[in-house]
């Protein structure tokens, strides 16, 4: 530990002590009720970090705080209690007991905290219903497909009603199609459950889809942390840039990120607003006021959908909020630049904006 504090490198320490520094100097705030993604390639220490969070691996130094409670050095009894009621986990290879039925697997956490059988099965049954596997309750995990098994793993983690969920490469062992399906499932569940999720993955696309915030890890340290859009716009780091290069921006960015806020386009055309700030219409250069056709999109509409709408319809694009108030317009070149990933032309940096 002294070597780490002295700032020695990972390979140097390995040479001197035969000890591998798994995770070093990582400081993360995991916001309540959101999905925080830790993304890194194998060996970057992301799984070690995840296991430090519920102390399956004991950190040698540092602090773990849950709602302000420092549980880094709490008694084994208190730690068990946290694991039984506050922090649960989903595993890469599901970690299901092959000789127990699906419902008993889901009830594992409840059994370990010694709830009566009827209660266990009632709660586990509810969880199976949530993940859509009720009719499989009395089957063995071996009879289920990979995606279904991970649903069982998810149901097991939800059954303890823990509010913190560690998902270690939870979807990495699944086929691409099933993986996407499970990502949707997680996002769907999250809209009602609002768990605090710490999601570990090596897949940057997955990180972008799921993460409210993403932390990119390399060699045991976090090298970039932020929202998906922030990271893609400004990777700050060659290593991170290597991931962001191939990102499908059209599906990541929304109207708000490329729009300009002025109603006029500087070439004679402009959106006409009424007193409430709502769009009354488009005045084309030389045309009648507020008579031109236009396309309205929401601020959170993805660029891909805007591009689709633009290719079908005619006229300029207006961004309007839920109440129909004008928020901005999207010039064609800004839309294209947004999709192409040209940071210079993004919001606020355009010379004519």
């Amino acid at each position: 530990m002294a070597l780490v504090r002295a700032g020695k490198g990972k390979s140097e320490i390995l040479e001197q002590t035969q000890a591998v520094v798994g995770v070093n100097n990582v400081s993360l705030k995991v916001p309540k009720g959101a999905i925080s993604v830790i993304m890194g390639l194998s060996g970057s220490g992301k799984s070690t970090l995840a296991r430090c969070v519920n102390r399956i691996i004991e950190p040698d130094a540092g602090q773990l705080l849950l709602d302000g409670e420092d549980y880094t050095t709490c008694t084994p009894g208190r730690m068990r209690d946290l694991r039984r009621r506050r922090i649960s986990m989903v595993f890469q290879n599901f970690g299901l007991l092959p000789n127990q039925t699906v419902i008993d697997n889901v009830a594992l956490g409840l059994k370990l905290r010694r709830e009566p059988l009827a209660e266990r099965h009632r709660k586990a049954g509810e969880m199976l219903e949530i993940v859509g596997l009720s009719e499989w309750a009395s089957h063995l995990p071996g009879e289920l497909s990979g995606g279904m098994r991970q649903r069982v793993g998810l149901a097991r983690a939800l059954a303890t009603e823990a509010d913190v969920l560690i998902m270690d490469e939870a979807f990495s062992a699944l086929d691409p199609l099933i993986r996407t399906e499970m990502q949707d499932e997680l996002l769907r569940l999250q809209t009602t459950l609002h768990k605090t999720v710490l999601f570990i993955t090596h897949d940057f696309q997955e990180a972008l889809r799921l993460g409210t915030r993403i932390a990119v890890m390399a060699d045991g340290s976090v090298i970039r942390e932020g929202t998906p859009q922030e990271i893609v716009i400004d990777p700050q780091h060659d290593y991170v840039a290597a991931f962001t290069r191939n990102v499908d921006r059209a599906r990541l960015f929304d109207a708000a990120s490329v729009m300009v806020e002025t109603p006029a386009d500087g070439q004679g055309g402009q959106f006409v607003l009424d007193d409430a700030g709502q769009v009354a219409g488009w005045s084309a250069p030389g045309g009648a006021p507020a008579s031109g056709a236009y396309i309205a999109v929401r601020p959170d509409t993805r660029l891909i959908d805007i591009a689709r709408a633009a290719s079908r319809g005619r006229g300029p694009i207006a961004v309007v909020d839920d109440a129909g108030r004008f928020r901005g317009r999207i010039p064609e070149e800004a839309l294209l630049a947004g999709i192409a990933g040209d940071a210079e032309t993004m919001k606020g940096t355009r010379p004519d904006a």
Partner: protein
Amino acid sequence: MLDPDQVYIPLASWIQIAIEWIADHFRPLFRSIRWPVDELLNAINGTLEVTPPLLLIALFGLLALWLAGRRTALFTVVSLVFILLLGIWYETLTTLSLIATAIVVCVVIGIPLGILCARSDRAWGILRPILDVMQTTPSFVYLIPVVMLFGVGTVPGAVAVIVVAVPPLIRFTNIGIRGVDQELIEAGIAFGATERQLLWEIQLPQALPTILGGLNQTVLLAMVMSVIVAMIGAEGLGLVVLQGLGRLDVGRAAVGGIGIVLMAIILDRLTQAVADRDPRARAGQSRISGAFARLFGGGHRRAEARLEASLDSKT
């Protein structure tokens, strides 16, 4: 110069003296070891002998039917009737009680020791070389200290059987528990299992097929040894063979041999069926021929070595 006819290190007499010393000074200890074995053996043998033979055969048939299916059940019933007709019924029961006693004691000793070894590398480090020596030592060699420490008869015979039969059970229990998927252990810990819950809810159930494979090995070793201990006066089928040999009565010896083979096949099929009830139980396949090859030492650790190798490559 060293004279080949001269003994320079009188190891033989040293061992003799050491064993005599132990026998003299620890007699109460060996008596107290003998006592539970004696009681158990008498209880089992007594029960078997007072049960009407046909009822016993029917019970065994039902047991075989339940565990292993129709074919084994039929074989069991026919074999036992044949043994009854051969006139070696009581000898067979004695051998069966001997084996049953040994199995009970082996389970009571072996499984906890195996668990201990799985949980502590230090315990395994100590026990492993001892097991290696125990399993490579020819079974005959155990007879001498057993006679000196426990005397002669069926009960010392049972003690010798236990000593020979217990190592595979310890090994397989250890391997089985150590081989449990790391992710399952982590799942247990992550959901707040105590050490005890981890053992009972996750490790033992997952290791059970391997442990039962070890039990099968133990049963077959006990079968083999139960014959050998006839040489120190244990009764049963072994004694029939030994008496046959002593009197050059080939017929009698052969009858004893047939009884032993039939018993061994029945026991193997039944314990194998128990181990195979779980489809995941693939560890510790064993065959009768293998069991008898073990009698002469050497090759009897192959299956375990394979298991251990696969375990090493996994971690």
